[in-house]
């Protein structure tokens, strides 16, 4: 009995240390964003600010168009999510429920595209967008991401777990494919679609390299690019950098805490199959 107790205690200590290492940057980011400049640079470091400097946030908004960044990020992440989900939905439906010649070829093609690293094609995509004259536009920001082979593959495995007789029944009941998709497939797969949507929105929110390439006007920047630009401009004003970082991370963290179960389950599900 004693041995087990000791083991559990050691386990708790190790887990606690790593949990602190994991959480600490987040806590420190939020607290640091509320400190005065002096507090951020004292030795020994300040952990909890004497007075919460809420004014840091208004300074951030005054020094850089963060509201605009928010709007841009929200628009691009939402549009990417909705359109790519829609395309993935239609494609996955066709792959799961319809029989057609060339299905095997399409499946093989999509599977091999899954392995292509995004970084290998992002620069040539930049070239395409530049030629189309779409730099510094919302269209340019979202266009290459309006289809996700990855999410389509995920939905395929989700739809594949629905009994094929459901589709047959709908056909016999007189439903068209379009009616089947919207009245049966979508309501039955709400959970999966929602998870995919969340993951897509989060990765859209956190995107960095692509918007860095295709935008150079301040008014078209996304949060992460705005944040790096601000970090260089604000230079030594650590407390403002941290306040800006807090602004970037907090919306996603809130989303995460509300839907943590769906998000974690979704990640486990799709990656083990990939």
């Amino acid at each position, binding site marked *: 009995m004693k041995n087990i107790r000791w*083991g*559990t205690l050691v*386990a708790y200590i*190790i*887990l606690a240390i790593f*949990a602190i290492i*994991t*959480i*600490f*940057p987040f806590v*420190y*980011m939020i607290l640091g964003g509320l400190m005065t400049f002096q507090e951020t*640079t004292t*030795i020994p*470091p300040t952990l909890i600010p004497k007075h919460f400097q809420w004014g840091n946030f208004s300074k951030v908004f005054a020094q850089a168009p963060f509201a605009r960044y928010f709007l841009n990020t929200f628009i691009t992440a939402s549009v990417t999510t909705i359109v790519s989900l*829609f*395309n*993935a939905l*239609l494609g996955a439906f*066709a792959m799961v429920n*319809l*029989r*057609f010649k060339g299905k095997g070829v*399409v499946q093989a093609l999509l599977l091999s595209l899954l*392995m*292509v*690293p995004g*970084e*290998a*094609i992002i*620069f*040539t*995509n930049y070239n*395409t967008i530049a030629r189309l004259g779409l730099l510094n536009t919302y269209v340019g920001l979202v266009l290459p991401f*309006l*289809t996700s*082979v990855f999410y*389509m593959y995920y939905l395929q495995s989700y739809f594949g777990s629905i009994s094929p007789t459901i589709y047959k029944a709908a056909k016999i009941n007189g439903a068209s*494919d379009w009616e089947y998709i919207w009245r049966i497939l979508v309501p039955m797969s709400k959970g999966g679609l929602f998870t995919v949507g969340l993951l897509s929105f*989060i990765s859209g929110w*956190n995107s*960095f*390299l692509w918007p860095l390439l295709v935008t150079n006007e301040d008014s078209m920047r996304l949060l*992460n690019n705005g944040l*790096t630009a601000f*970090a*260089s401009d604000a230079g030594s004003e650590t407390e403002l*950098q*941290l306040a800006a*970082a807090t602004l*970037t*991370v907090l919306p*996603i963290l809130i*989303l*995460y805490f509300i839907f*943590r179960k769906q998000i*974690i389950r979704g*990640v486990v599900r799709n*990656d*083990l199959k990939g």
Partner: protein
Amino acid sequence: MKTNQKKAWIFLAPTLLFVTFFSIWPIIRAFIMSFQSGSLINLSWSGFSNYQYIFKDPEFWLAIKNTILYALISVPVALAISIMLAWLIFSKIKNKGLFETTFFMPYVTSTIAIGIVFRYIFNGEYGMLNFILRFLHLPAPNWIDDPAMSLTTIIIFGIWTSLAFNIVILMGALRNIDPNYYTIADMYGASGTEKFWRITMPQLVPTIAFLLTMNIIAAFKVYTSVYALFNGQAGVGNSATTAVFYIYNKFQIVGTPGVAMAATVILFIIIMFVTFLQRKMMKKIGGH
């Protein structure tokens, strides 16, 4: 069912259209451009000169060396820590969800934002990390501004960020192990360590192999965390440059897209090779 044929292609049309323009074409295009020189608007054929250039470029070799070092150190260390943490949560903790939620946080947060926080924590003078190290009478190096330290700093940050995904996937795999195995082992009086090495580890092998490849591929693409830690630079004096950094630099800053694409093709081949190795490895594991 001829109608079915046409319908299927209509449903697949948006996906196939976008995929053709933004996935397939860019691969072909990258390959073509790797044999061309000049600026984006004025490209001309130049044979293998781009490849010759990068193989002679010490900066390219530094980038590859850094990337490989980063992958070879951060991936196994992160994986080992992840396995330990996942196993501890799984075997000792009742409230597994709480720890899972905590450890997964870095996965959903912006690397850029959290990189700024780490830059602050790593600060040589007033950073929290060095404060703790000095308190423990340990050497307190200049994590950010010392070129000799920059790769180490990136590796530490890389480990911190990759724990999240590993732990959650490993937890999923641990939950999938038939609990009867443990019940039987208990009946025969197996100890905790015996259960871990004789039951858990063999069952986790496919998952670990999967994570290993995913992590290595991700490590080869490391860029954002470097950018965030060093404020847009690849460390002091480019000391921490990586493959993607090199490509970005040649493409966007120096304006030699051909060279960038030659480096891309090399990176692409390396990643394909790792994926191929993983397939082989998985088949071998699945085979027996």
